[in-house]
């Protein structure tokens, strides 16, 4: 039955004569549909001779042709050498010992080369000096293949030849010979005996030549203090392995303090042996790596640090000072002094305060203690810069007294606080030459850019410490038309021979003392027995000049001056610091380092103002996690002494001292780097008078900054099964079951350990035959330095995804270092609080009172990190579970278990369902959301031929849509096995390595075969501190962790 109802569209239809009704009947749409808009210009479409049919034909044919062509394999050409170099066998890696000395990082290293291409940096285990290769050194190999490097010498932006450049320079130098204008070399710290000698020879020929050494991040205070006391310019050496009490006042000695490289020694003393380990007390304002590792951390502002150091001295030695400190800090200083006193020569004090008096006091304390860890004889020479001379140079330049300025390894227009003065002065210099890798801020303002080679293409020598020498040798022929500074200097002096010959001669005459140069070159290091002072020639003149200015202050004078310099500032104090990733900013165009999450904030691609929680509340600054999983933060305008930086993002940093804020150097570069790498703000503009602490005012401005932070949850919420922690006292006195308890489950109402086969879902395979690999991670020895993260990146061709992708938690790092804060003063207190929560506590929760002891309120409280938290680092990579949850859910069996314990991932089999990642309790699987190689959308390094040269040929470059993860560096274990098979021998302990375990110089990561019962890893597995991550899940991982023990023993 059809209805007779009539539906009216509008009352208008009642009017039969309405024109509107008629129009609507004819036209369905009232408005003209804008077909032309999306079809394009009608006229030009009609004018085209291609009809729609033709178009479809073309499409059809091209599709058919493309699919036909796809069936044919490409023709691959292979071009062998004409004359193959003897040492190169295609497919076999060569290792060369060399050294990095870029003015900021100094280390003796091994370079792995494949078919003549350096592809990875490794530790030179022969070198005892200056620790291990840190994250920046590990990443420096990528800088070699930087497409933005200067590819040849330039004059005013136009390419010229080296002959032309040399001729122009020599002409100018000769013109200046005998004139009253200066010839100035403004260089980084080379710490190179040969360079010093060469510059000295230059000064002989041109008496008006002057060598100014400039460190971007000044250590002048410490250098001056050491020089006044010990005569040589440098630092005292510290070996923290010898110390049982370490007190640091503002020194991030696990970071870049005094050149860095102290972490190996520190880590040795941190592993409890025979019930003993060192105790580390840290007084600092920013949360640093050292503070994070400390047993006791006292947050205090930079000015309070000075007072604290003065007080420490007075409590220790007995003299009185007139400095006031808040009571709790004073108590902490007192107890530290008592501990130092008790430990005597086993104690050591270090300080990072930018003040000559403070540094003098520290030297005094250590010599008073007669500290074993303190070695003033072995001078560290890796910083030689002098602020006063740099400022004098700028004055001279502005006054027109400089006839030629030749720079090498420095970028003052970026790194100077008064860069504008420098630029003005630079314009008044008759000739300016910059040896530079890049067209950076400074070199692009110079008349000549002398294209410098990367250190992997250069010769060189370094005296890291007195008597500890390292040689630098090229590991690849220069990629571009480059010449190093020393080579050019030789040419300008009209000397024959190469710099290599010059080094060889210098070494044979002054350093080697009869030893073989070839052996030294092979080892990369040389320790001279006699420890003769050899490298002073070049700098003695300058040193004499400066040392006159420094009054050799007596300890009491220094102490008084230190106490007097404590100003009680009302406002905020800014502490400038360096980050593990970028350091002084030389490698800002290195995407590995940009993407490297900061160990403390876990934030990449940015620098930011770190603010304490209470200060943030005062200023109304917020950090919040937004719906897409990213972290957003407020902006502030920061003003220091008239210099303003606008829109600095803010991160609320647990542990930041109230009344202090922190900002990292190294960001905000503007020239010589890719658009993506121009991140952050330039903190150098606040570096007035080369003081890293400044008084500062901040002002909140509107807007929100989008951070690329990879860890949004900062606390453990009392989950002691992720990180097990205990104190030394409990560790020494209580049973293992108290502090490292095996989780139990109930089987037939009987408590059974989760590792028991009775409660397991799966049958176990017999893994006792052949190799069975395990990786041990000691949470006590891990300082969170991140060298392993970069080493893994380089070894396994891990792509860089960029800031926006990082923000979406799509980072590809196979190895991450989780950092957790405690919510109470300690992590153990968190566990107690969680266990003590009673019931749900809904009432308290609903009424917004977070004080109750119900679990809802407790958990909400636990989410918040403490103002002065305990910090713990935990490297997490694929745990290679023997009962892996990921393997059971893969629909195509792309991830399977190997007999040697690895959880293997067959990329070519993976279809990208991501079930495995969802089922992984450790969240270590990484999905390739995009094609990251040869894709210009990801303009980092894999999209150009030069950048791809760093890729490891033994590891597949993954494509879009496949899952990837840590493989236990199976390419390395397989190689070790094959080498042994070829030699027909058994494998010795220590031969098996992964990239991370090889990069870890702290002994935190140990890799090996547990079926070899004598091996170190087998012993570590049997250790009482051993536990598995999330043991109760029953995954039986092959990565083992060692319970963190803190030495909380107060004296």
């Amino acid at each position, binding site marked *: 039955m059809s209805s007779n109802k009539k539906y009216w569209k509008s009352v208008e239809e009642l009017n039969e004569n309405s024109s509107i009704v008629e129009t609507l009947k004819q036209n369905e749409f009232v408005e003209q549909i804008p077909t032309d808009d999306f079809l394009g210009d009608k006229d030009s479409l009609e004018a085209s001779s291609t009809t729609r049919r033709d178009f479809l034909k073309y499409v059809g044919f091209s599709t058919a042709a493309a699919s036909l062509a796809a069936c044919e*394999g490409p023709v691959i050409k*292979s071009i062998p050498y004409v004359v*193959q170099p003897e040492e190169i*066998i295609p*497919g076999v890696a060569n290792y060369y010992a060399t050294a990095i000395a870029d003015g900021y990082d100094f280390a003796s290293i091994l370079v792995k080369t494949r078919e003549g291409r350096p592809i990875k940096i490794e530790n030179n285990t022969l070198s005892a000096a200056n620790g291990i290769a840190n994250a920046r050194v590990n990443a420096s190999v990528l800088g070699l293949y930087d497409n933005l490097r200067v590819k040849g010498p330039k004059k005013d932006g136009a390419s010229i030849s080296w002959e032309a450049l040399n001729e122009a320079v020599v002409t100018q130098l000769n013109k200046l010979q005998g004139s009253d204008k200066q010839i100035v070399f403004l260089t980084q710290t080379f710490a190179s005996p040969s360079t010093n000698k060469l510059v000295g020879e230059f000064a002989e020929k041109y008496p008006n030549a002057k060598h100014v050494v400039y460190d971007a991040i000044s250590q002048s205070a410490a250098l001056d203090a050491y020089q006044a006391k010990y005569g040589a310019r440098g630092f005292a050496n510290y070996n923290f392995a010898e110390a049982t009490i370490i007190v640091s006042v503002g020194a991030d000695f696990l970071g870049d303090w005094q050149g860095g490289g102290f972490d190996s020694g520190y880590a040795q003393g941190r592993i409890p042996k025979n019930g003993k380990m060192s105790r580390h007390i840290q007084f600092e304002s920013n949360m640093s790596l050292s503070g994070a590792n400390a047993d006791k951390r006292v947050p205090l502002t930079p000015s309070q640090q000075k007072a604290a150091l003065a007080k420490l001295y007075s409590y220790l030695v007995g003299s009185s000072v007139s400095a006031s400190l808040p009571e709790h800090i004073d108590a902490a200083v007192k107890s530290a002094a008592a501990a130092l006193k008790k430990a005597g020569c086993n104690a050591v004090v270090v300080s990072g305060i930018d003040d000559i008096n403070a540094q003098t006091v520290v030297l005094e304390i250590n010599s008073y203690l007669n500290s074993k860890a303190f070695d003033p004889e072995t001078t560290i020479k890796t910083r030689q810069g002098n602020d006063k001379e740099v400022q004098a140079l700028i004055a001279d330049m502005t006054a027109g007294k400089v006839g030629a300025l030749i720079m090498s390894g420095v970028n003052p227009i970026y790194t100077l606080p008064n860069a504008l003065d420098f630029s003005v002065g630079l314009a008044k210099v008759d000739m300016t030459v910059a040896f530079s890798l890049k067209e950076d801020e400074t070199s692009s303002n110079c008349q000549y850019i002398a294209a410098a080679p990367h250190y992997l293409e250069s010769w060189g020598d370094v005296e890291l410490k007195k008597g500890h020498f390292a040689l630098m040798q090229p590991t690849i022929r220069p990629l571009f038309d480059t010449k190093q500074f020393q080579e050019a200097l030789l040419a300008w002096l009209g000397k024959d021979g190469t710099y290599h010959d010059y080094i060889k001669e210098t070494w044979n005459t002054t350093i080697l003392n009869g030893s073989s140069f070839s052996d030294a070159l092979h080892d990369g290091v040389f320790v001279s027995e006699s420890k003769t002072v050899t490298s002073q020639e070049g700098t003695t003149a300058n040193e004499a000049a400066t040392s006159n200015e420094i009054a050799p202050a007596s300890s009491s004078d220094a102490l008084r001056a230190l106490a007097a310099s404590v100003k009680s500032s009302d406002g905020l104090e800014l502490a400038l610091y360096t980050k593990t990733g970028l350091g002084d900013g030389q490698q800002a165009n290195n995407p590995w380092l940009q993407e490297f999450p900061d160990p403390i904030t876990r934030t990449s691609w940015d620098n930011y103002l770190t603010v304490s929680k209470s200060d943030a509340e005062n200023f109304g600054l917020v950090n919040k996690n937004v719906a897409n999983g990213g972290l957003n933060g407020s902006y502030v305008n920061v003003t220091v002494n008239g210099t303003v930086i606008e829109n600095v993002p803010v991160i609320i940093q647990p542990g930041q001292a109230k009344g202090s804020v922190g900002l990292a150097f190294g960001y905000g570069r503007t020239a010589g780097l890719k658009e993506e790498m121009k991140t952050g703000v330039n903190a150098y503009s606040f570096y007035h008078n080369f003081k890293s602490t400044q008084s500062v005012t901040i002002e909140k401005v509107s807007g929100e900054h989008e951070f690329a932070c990879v860890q949004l949850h900062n606390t453990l919420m009392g989950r002691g099964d992720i990180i097990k922690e205990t104190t030394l006292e409990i560790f020494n006195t209580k049973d293992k079951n108290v502090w490292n308890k095996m989780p139990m489950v109930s089987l037939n109402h009987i408590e059974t350990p989760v590792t028991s086969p009775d409660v397991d879902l799966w049958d176990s395979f017999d893994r006792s035959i052949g190799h069975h690999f395990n990786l041990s991670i000691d949470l006590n020895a891990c300082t969170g330095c991140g060298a392993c993260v970069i080493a893994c990146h380089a070894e396994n061709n891990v792509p860089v995804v960029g800031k926006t992708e990082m923000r979406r938690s799509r980072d590809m790092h196979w190895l991450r270092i989780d950092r957790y804060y405690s919510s109470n003063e300690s992590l153990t207190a968190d566990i107690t609080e969680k266990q003590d929560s009673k019931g749900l506590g809904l009432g308290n929760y609903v009424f917004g009172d977070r004080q109750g002891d119900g679990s809802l309120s407790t958990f909400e409280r636990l989410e918040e990190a403490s103002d002065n938290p305990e910090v713990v680092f935990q490297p997490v990579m694929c745990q290679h579970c023997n009962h892996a949850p990921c393997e059971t859910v893969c629909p195509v069996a792309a991830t399977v278990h190997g007999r040697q314990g*690895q959880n293997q991932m067959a990329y070519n089999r993976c279809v990208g369902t991501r079930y495995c990642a969802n089922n992984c309790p450790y969240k270590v699987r990484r999905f390739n959301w995009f094609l990251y190689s040869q894709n210009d959308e990801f303009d980092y390094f894999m999209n150009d031929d030069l950048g791809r040269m760093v890729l490891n040929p033994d590891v597949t470059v993954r494509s879009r849509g496949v899952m990837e993860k840590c493989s236990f560096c199976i390419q390395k274990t397989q190689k070790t096995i094959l080498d042994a098979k070829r030699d027909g021998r058994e494998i010795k302990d220590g031969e098996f390595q992964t990239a991370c375990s090889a990069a870890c110089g702290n002994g935190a990561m140990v890799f090996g075969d547990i079926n070899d019962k004598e091996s170190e890893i087998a012993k570590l597995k049997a250790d009482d501190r051993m536990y598995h991550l999330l043991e109760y899940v029953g995954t039986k991982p092959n990565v083992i962790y060692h319970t963190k023990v803190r030495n909380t023993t107060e004296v």
Partner: protein
Amino acid sequence: MKISYQKLEDNLISNMRQVIYRYLTSTSLFFGFLFLLLFSNSVFSQEGDAAAGKTLYNANCAACHRLDKPMTGPALRYVEKRLSEEEGLDREWLYSWIRNSAGMIKSGDPYSVRIYNEWNQVAMNAFPQLSDTDIDNILAYTAQEPPAPVVAEVPVGGGGGETSGVSEKLILGALAVLFALLAMALILVRQTLKRFADAKGVVIEETKSTPIWKAFVQNQFLVLVTAIFFLLASGYYVYGYFMQVGIDQGYMPVQPIHYSHKIHAGDNAIDCNYCHSSARVSKHSGIPSLNVCMNCHKAIGEVAESTATAEYSKDFYDGEIQKLYAAVGWDEATQSYTGKTQPVKWVRIHNLPDFAYFNHSQHVSVAGIECQTCHGPVEEMEIMYQHSPLTMGWCINCHRETNVKVEDNAYYTKIHEELSKKYGVEELTAAQMGGLECGKCHY
């Protein structure tokens, strides 16, 4: 048909005649040369046995001297004659030069010093062990006339090749003729029978049956079965087609230099690892760099007459060696490198995908597998081609079937002992050793 057959036969005979004729001419020529040589021998050096001299020459002199071309040292044909005519030096000089050239240079003998300087100051080895008679024999050999180019042999080979082709055609032709005759005979028989029938008045009834295709269409069962059959068959072939995409078994690209593995590995029996030396220690077998070629080809500027085949003449091979010289920058005339090199862009034949890891040294050095196991009869390949499919199934099969070579390898001692006990076998296959795990090849 018969006529054509006759023609063929004629051709064949004439061909054979030609061959015989040519052969005869060449032999007569050869004898002529031999006669001449003998005669010339008697003219220039009455003492000395040229045959013994050849052996001595090859053993002692050939490393640096050729008869007709300069090599490391000068060309030696008619050396005695040349020296006596141009320099006035006698055989005694030659004796002392050969036995101790360095001494002669030192003593300041003018010609010795000159020739020493002329040849890049490379002193000739001393041969004190050669007696006067030995040297006489060598000189006799160097005094021989060069043999005239042999022209007869190549066509003989060519003729041989043709005859085999002809014989095949012949058989086919004969068969065709036979079938044609049979068919004709059948038609004739039918006609005759029909004629008989006509004559006898028998009427053969032509039964009106449905044509076979109609019958087929009407039989639905048959249609169905056929359809299924065709579907299955086409499915089989389509599957087969797709499964061979990307498998380049038999891939035989044209290379920039015609390098014959047959000549090098086959005829001359050079060990594979001599050129592909990195196969012992590296994952790559390595395409030999050109300096490896020059180890031999410095001395071998042309191939022997006997190397030439029907398909590739001596000129062709010599041309290929010239390509090598051009690539490596070798100047034959001055016997020196010009420094102008031009790397050879070989076409890679064996291509594994990037995600598969294969290591030659594991298979060559550790397992001791013959190269031919995977690469086929390389020593018979004039042009190299891909012998094996190089698919994963092929790899896996071999791992399942091949026993691990554990003898005299301390690495395997413990694992072999334990594993063989576990599996209860004496010999372990690569698979039992873990050679089937994904991660062993894919990482």
